[in-house]
């Protein structure tokens, strides 16, 4: 299993959480051969999108990801900024074109932000929010609907094709919390930081056999 390392932030927590739930030989790498040889790929990300995209392109992680997704048909899990990088375009850093693997936008929450009762909401959206199940998926196995996961983000994803939305979260707006298409699953929340429920999702990922 390969965790794609494009030099942004701490990837140890993803790798150690995967190892904790039983993943064997987890490598954190941007080496072409290692990623090609892996049977599963995790595409994480933290930090600002402009720097992320620059590193992804410089290290040709975008091509590796495409190969894993559409040629090798390997299970791929994208997390947080990894999910945002899959979209068409992000508003962050004055506007950055992303990978367009999943058509859709990444927008700022905007301020002032309020919930339905008129309470002011802080940005970043930081902490534990309930994820509403939008579609059934093997990665939700053993996780009750409306379970809380750990989020930390100031920008949120809206996929153009709403049939790809696997989970959503309310935070002043209705944001896509999880997207699923064929052998790809993407989460805005951090499963590696979401305690028991997050570990269950990662366990589901390492046992997932996509039907495509």
């Amino acid at each position: 299993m390969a965790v794609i390392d494009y030099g942004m932030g701490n990837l140890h927590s993803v790798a150690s959480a995967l190892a904790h739930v039983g993943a064997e030989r987890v490598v954190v790498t941007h080496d072409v051969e290692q990623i090609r040889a892996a049977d599963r790929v995790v595409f994480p990300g933290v930090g600002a999108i402009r720097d992320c995209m620059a590193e992804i392109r410089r290290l040709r992680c975008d091509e590796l990801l495409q190969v894993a997704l559409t040629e090798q048909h390997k299970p791929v899990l994208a997390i947080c900024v990894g999910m945002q990088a899959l979209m068409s375009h992000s508003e962050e850093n004055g506007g950055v074109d992303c990978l367009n693997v999943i058509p859709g936008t990444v927008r700022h929450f905007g301020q002032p932000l309020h919930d339905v009762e008129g309470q002011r909401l802080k940005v970043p959206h930081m902490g534990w929010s309930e994820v509403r199940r939008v579609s059934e998926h093997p990665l939700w196995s053993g996780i009750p609907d409306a379970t809380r996961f750990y989020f930390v983000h100031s920008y949120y994803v809206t996929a153009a094709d709403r049939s790809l939305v696997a989970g959503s979260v309310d935070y002043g707006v209705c944001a896509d919390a999880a997207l699923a298409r064929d052998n790809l699953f993407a989460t805005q929340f951090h499963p590696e930081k979401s305690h028991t429920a997050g570990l269950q999702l990662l366990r589901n990922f390492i046992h997932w056999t996509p039907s495509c």
Partner: protein
Amino acid sequence: MGLAKRIIPCLDVDNGRVVKGVNFVGIRDAGDPVEIARRYNEQGADEITFLDITASHEGRETTVHTVEQIAEQVFIPLTVGGGIRSVDDIRTMLNAGADKVSINTAAIHNPELVRQASQRFGAQCIVVAIDAKRVADVDGQPRWEIFTHGGRKPTGIDAVAWAVRMAELGAGEILLTSMDRDGTKNGFELGVTRAITDAVDIPVIASGGVGNLQHLVDGILLGGADAVLAASIFHFAEYTVPEAKAYMAECGIEVRL
């Protein structure tokens, strides 16, 4: 249902041991940080904060090793603070497994560090810690100032204005400690908590002075805090994290159960 208010047990660590002092003096040993962090993770804590109060160079290396060990076993967010002075220090802690770093004195000496760190690593992992102490009122209005050196050295900086500036520079969160209350078990200083939560759009963690569960509730309902941090009530098993959450839920606060 919205965002849960967070409970954050805090480990003050000196040379690899969790300690707890009263007003930063009178240190008491509370045990092994890795074991304690694991216990809070199992109890359902929402995050863990690790404050390194070690002054020596050797102690710093111990800290990096301890953070690595905690990160291997704890699958909730981990914030590390204490002695963070540069972008390199931040990188070291993030690489060791921290999810966020807390910057305190270095932000006062060099506010640009907050901007640089936020641009490099993202606002989500930059916490600015503010140690505030009440000073003489101005025109009948209470005023709080930033203090350094464990609350002994005034800086002349207004705590509320400082919080606003840190948010503008790219801090993702404020960790607010009342130096008047820290270690006293008399509850948070709600005046400064409210003033800062009202003034900034980023989350605020209230810290300093928790002695019972009502204090946690007051920090959120009266102080407006997004998260509450406590040390000794959990370390010395006066209360468990589930007891704290159950009480908060009874008081109408949304928590992760």
